[in-house]
């Protein structure tokens, strides 16, 4: 009895697809789903005997290859050695601006989030930044962020080799068009609808009339994810990996 594909597994597989072509993926601390996506891509490439994918997970001992202190991630990105990274945001708006600082008038934010971390740099220099936020509500996806930690696009003449590539939420997958600029809904995750996404999104976005459903992984990919990838994930995110394993075995039993 194979357990049915879970929403999380669809997210992980979507991330692996978005990362395809990257040689070096960096993942921030406390990001188990992006980490799993990067590990899945690495495993898939290994199976295909394609060029190895390097995955650097901050805060991990096993998967952190840096030896020059906490500046090295940023140096490495500045050197063009990081192809893909993940950013979230307390608020994300329709032109790809992200806000990691707070709600209301800065500096006396009524809700204060931790802060911008490295976003104000990495968003400029990592070619493929994947915006990942599971919560898909109007308070997250706003018309205009209250504080720009990092802008989605820049004026001509501003040095920029990176920026938003896609936005993945709990409801759907968007691509980002830097020229327009704006998001385009590419697919809706199983169990969700365009109407629901429109209601949950505070900004306008493009979409086709007949929307795709975000694909579920094939059997081989699922096997890799539930095997090798969960094993690797366990080293850095033991709680998360254990939780996924429980889901899978519960699903297999009930299936």
């Amino acid at each position: 009895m194979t357990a049915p594909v879970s929403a999380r597994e669809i997210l992980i597989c979507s991330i692996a697809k978005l990362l395809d072509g990257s040689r070096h993926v960096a993942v921030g601390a406390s990001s188990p789903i992006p980490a799993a996506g990067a590990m899945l891509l690495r495993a898939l490439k290994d199976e295909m005997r394609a060029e190895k994918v390097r995955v650097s997970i901050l805060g991990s001992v096993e998967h952190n290859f840096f030896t020059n202190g906490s500046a090295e991630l940023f140096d490495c990105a500045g050197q063009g050695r990081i192809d893909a990274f993940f950013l979230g945001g307390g608020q994300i708006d329709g032109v790809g601006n992200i806000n990691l600082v707070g709600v209301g008038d800065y500096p006396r934010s009524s809700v204060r989030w931790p802060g911008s971390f490295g976003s104000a740099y990495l968003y400029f220099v990592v070619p493929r930044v994947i915006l990942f936020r599971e919560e898909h509500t109007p308070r997250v996806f706003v018309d205009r962020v209250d504080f720009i930690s990092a802008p989605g696009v820049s004026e001509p003449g501003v040095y920029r080799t990176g920026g938003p590539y896609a936005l993945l939420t709990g409801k759907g997958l968007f691509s980002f068009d830097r020229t327009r600029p704006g998001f385009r809904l590419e697919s809706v995750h199983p169990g969700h609808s365009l109407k629901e996404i429109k209601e949950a999104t505070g900004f306008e976005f493009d979409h086709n009339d007949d929307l795709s459903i975000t694909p579920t992984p094939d059997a081989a990919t699922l096997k890799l994810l539930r095997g090798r990838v969960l094993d690797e994930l366990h080293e850095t995110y033991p709680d998360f990996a254990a939780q996924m394993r429980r889901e899978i075995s519960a699903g297999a039993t009930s299936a």
Partner: protein
Amino acid sequence: MHTDLEALARQIEPGMRIALPVDYAGVSMAMTRPIIDHGASDLDLVCVPTGGLQVDMLVGAGLVRSVETSAVSLGEAGGAPRFNQAVRDGSIGLRDATCPAIHAGLMAAQKGSPFTAMRGLIGTDILKNRDDWRVIDNPFAQSGDPIVLIPAIHPDIAIFHAPMADRFGNVWIGRRRELAAMAYASKMTFVTVERIVDESLLASETLAAGTLPALYVSEIAVAPRGAWPYGLWGEYQTDTAELLRYAKAARTAEGFAAYMSGAVTEPAQ
């Protein structure tokens, strides 16, 4: 060189600029209580490049005038409650930054340069709120190419925790090179350590590679499990339960006060 925590804390004067490391790099939590007991206020904190429990406690104790940081949080235990409250109250100055800008400021100080140029930042509200930063046109570019200059950050004191020091005042920092950057940039550097070793850390090339020389170290004090409840790389893990206990207590000023006056402010041995 080897002295007690209270003696170190007494060297902190009101209005000083203090550099503190990120959660996982070696926070001298053991110094937090002595600093609060000593009570020098109007401190300007520089988080390298982000802050956590120690920053939240110093803010909660009312010692902090401003925080320069890329983020403050308790990690898995959530937001930093006293810091967030102080932001809402407007009772501390905020100098929001981004991680590499903090590193850039320390690097300028390390190099004896007035500033370091860095990419990114253009068009952010971080830059808009930093009147101490400058934007110039890159003189090497053919056409207009705005770039941000971050001025040197010169802390009065850097404070951190490390696994070991030797009898000669050298400190082993391993691959946590940001601790060296903090020390290079700062006038004084206070280090608490798990232990003092007899042999010089510079005696073998292997250990020397991860050693901050005594030249940059002003004071060393022994504080076993001195990062607790944070972990120390290669030594012990973070005590997340304790962080959660703090996070819950410090939601209110009263809860914070109760936590700080409580018995459990030292690690279980």
